[in-house]
């Protein structure tokens, strides 16, 4: 839980107020960065902290500190992605829209001896597998997915962080979820998670 420093403390010793906020939010920032940029997370948090410290005087509402820090972090991550940009693979959104992981699992029936097919499929995924699947998504869709479903921000908060309309975030979330489901299946196939279980 975020305990905001009161305005008087911030005025009296802004450096200390910033350090308190940064320390409190550090685990969450690092976790978010790892989910968005993987191995570059430490560098991104480092850069975020430096930028945030320089701009701390611009923070009007100390209670908004966590979202403000996350916003700076996300922008550092986007800058990194732009700098190392490669052409993203073309996505067939029409075909993607028709994809349902639930129905695909039922159709493919990877564990024919199971009576809880869908849960068995999900149980094959450890936290590292989930992170690896998320990392396969283009950044445009990965960022809102991470912030809303992994970090618990509201879509409207994410819209403010990314400085885009709410409708854009909702649309990216929709496509991001579909891509996530599709990538889960592909990852499971490629990583051997679909090896038949309980086969006599």
């Amino acid at each position, binding site marked *: 839980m975020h305990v905001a420093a009161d305005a008087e403390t911030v005025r009296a010793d802004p*450096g200390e107020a*910033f*350090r308190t906020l*940064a*320390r409190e939010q*550090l*685990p969450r920032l*690092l*976790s978010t960065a*790892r989910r968005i940029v993987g191995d570059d*997370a*430490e560098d991104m*948090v*480092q850069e975020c*902290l*430096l930028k945030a*410290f320089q701009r701390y005087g611009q923070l009007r509402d100390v209670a908004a500190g966590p979202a403000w820090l996350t916003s700076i972090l996300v922008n550092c991550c986007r800058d990194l992605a732009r700098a190392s940009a490669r052409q993203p693979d073309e996505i067939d959104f029409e075909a993607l*829209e*028709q994809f*349902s*992981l*639930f*129905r695909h699992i039922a159709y493919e029936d990877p564990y024919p001896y199971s009576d809880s097919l*869908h*849960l068995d499929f*999900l149980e094959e*995924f450890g*936290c590292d597998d*989930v992170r690896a699947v*998320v990392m396969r998504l283009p950044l445009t869709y990965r960022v809102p*997915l991470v912030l*809303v*479903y*992994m970090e*618990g921000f509201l*879509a409207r908060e994410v819209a403010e962080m990314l400085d885009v309309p709410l409708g854009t975030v*909702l649309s990216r*979330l*929709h496509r991001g*979820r579909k891509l*996530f*489901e599709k990538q889960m299946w592909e990852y499971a196939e490629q990583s051997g998670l679909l090896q038949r279980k309980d086969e006599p």
Partner: protein
Amino acid sequence: MIGCREAVQRLWEYLDGTVEPDERVLVEEHLARCRTCCGELEFAKELRRMLARRPDGDLPADVLQRLDQTIEELGT
């Protein structure tokens, strides 16, 4: 009335609470008579739980320590 395709397209938004009230009614009407889509709904809930799962001790202590040192040095 909506069909399975339209209902499935709205399931996550339904769980997020971001569908319009009239669409929410349509999804609920469909769920009331479609067992397959109820399965889809439960599966979507499990997927969301999986995404939100946070493993204990996930963050590397050495990285946290270095970043904490950065914070300590800022402005001092």
